[in-house]
């Protein structure tokens, strides 16, 4: 957390939890997909499920999925813009009360069939927590420079990624690894201090056994 999480974000109203936080959840999913989504399936939980329409949460999530930032004046027109841009959005609500009050599950599909699924919560003031990527537990807030590396669970992948980070002089603040099953799809979420070069992300992307690497800049 830093001062600009409290004095900020600069955003479009009306609710930082329901609007700005939702834009950021959509935007991270958009970054993870790495290409234009043609289909979005959204499930809302808790307060998101109950009051999304009044707060424009559906518009906010859709805006983020299309790559808009929290201060984009077009957020209020996101639903119409999605239609114009060939993005089909379906929205469901769930009664599951075990999750944080403001939680959404977002599944995106690109034209080539690539897909990504994310579970995250808006925890107040526009801050977020992502707790699952492709059904694997993760923990990321997007408040620090973060790398999300989807990869095959094979020996040596983590070491290679860590080597690249060391070469770049990047200091790892947190490292979280989880996998669907032994030898299956895995995800590492790495928060680093300061900023890193996009070049580093490209190098990780080119590694064998890496499915995709996404750099979330602050």
């Amino acid at each position, binding site marked *: 957390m830093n001062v600009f*999480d*409290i004095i900020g974000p600069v955003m*479009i109203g009306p609710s930082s939890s329901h609007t700005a936080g939702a834009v950021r959840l959509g935007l991270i999913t958009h970054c993870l997909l790495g290409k234009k989504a043609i289909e979005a399936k959204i499930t809302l939980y808790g307060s998101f499920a109950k*009051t999304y*329409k009044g707060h424009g949460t559906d518009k906010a999530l859709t805006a983020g999925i299309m790559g808009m930032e929290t201060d984009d004046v077009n957020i209020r027109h996101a639903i119409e813009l999605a239609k114009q841009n060939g993005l089909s959005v379906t929205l469901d609500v769930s009664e599951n009360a075990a999750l944080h009050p403001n939680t959404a599950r977002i599944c995106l599909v690109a034209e080539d069939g690539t897909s990504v699924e994310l579970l995250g919560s808006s925890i107040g003031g526009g801050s977020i927590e992502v707790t699952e990527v492709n059904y694997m537990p993760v923990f990321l807030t997007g408040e620090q420079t973060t790398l999300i590396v989807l990869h095959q669970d094979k020996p040596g992948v983590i070491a290679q990624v860590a080597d690249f980070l060391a070469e770049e002089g990047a200091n790892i603040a947190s490292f979280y690894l989880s996998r669907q099953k032994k030898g299956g799809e895995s995800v590492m979420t790495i928060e680093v201090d300061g900023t890193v070069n996009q070049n580093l992300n490209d190098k990780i992307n080119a590694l064998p056994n890496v499915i995709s690497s996404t750099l979330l800049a602050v």
Partner: protein
Amino acid sequence: MEFNFDYSSVADIVKEAVRREILLSELILKQQAEQLECSCEVLFEKMKERYQVMKESVRLGSDPDLRSVSGLTGGDSYKVMQRHQSGHSLVGSLFSGAMYRALAVSELNAAMGKIVATPTAGSCGILPASVITMQEEYELSEEKCVMSLFTAAGVGMVIAGKAGVSGAQGGCQAECGSASAMAAAAIVELAGGTAEMAADAVAIVLKNVLGLVCDPVAGLVEIPCIKRNASGTATAFMAAELALSGVRSAIPADEVIVAMKNVGDQMSSSLKETAEGGLATTPTGKNLFQQVFGTEMKDDETVCSVCTGCGS
């Protein structure tokens, strides 16, 4: 530079500022520059940009023709501004100025305008109204006012860490209450008070908002949120005035924050932003719901169950 605090306690931050004989704002700016690995100048400029957005939101929000997307609110800031400018306000220039500015930013937010969440959008009027009013009334420098936002942020970070700042988690006490506590600390610094006084002002504010529920009519951040921004601003000036006079809070700020967290945990979820209790379920609240969504809100219904947005 070694910093002997980590935003887990207001008392630790105050102690460090006293030890170094610097303002809270300077301490927080220096620590943040180190944490974010950039210069104090860069951080200051970034904060200054946000202060400009705040001023612009007061200007746009006090337009007489401003209306929210739902049509339920807008135009009240203009009324209070008229009275403020007439010089005949009951409570004096500082107070009436603070009131119209708090309403302006909050009404703009409901109209899907651009605001700075401080700490949230629902409470976005309180800190701008407090700091801008201090600048206007006391002819303070822009620099001093921008710096006071770092003090407010430091307080907000402690509250966010110890208790949370979302209405869905802690009720309105966590949203407008936190904003009001942050504003009180900023006002104390702008008025030349000490770091200890700022901490007392934080405690006094939060003691006065404990238990405040989040009960938005029709689930919208409008009724009663907008007027609670005016009230939160009033509370911030009240607490600052007491603290500047040397009045201490019997319960220290850190303990009040924990009490607020406990009260929030004990609060029914129907009173935490779900629009299932409080003002949202009054007869008029339900009528306004119907006015906005075009369907009737029955006793066993929630905002969700009458909405057809998901097609189910």
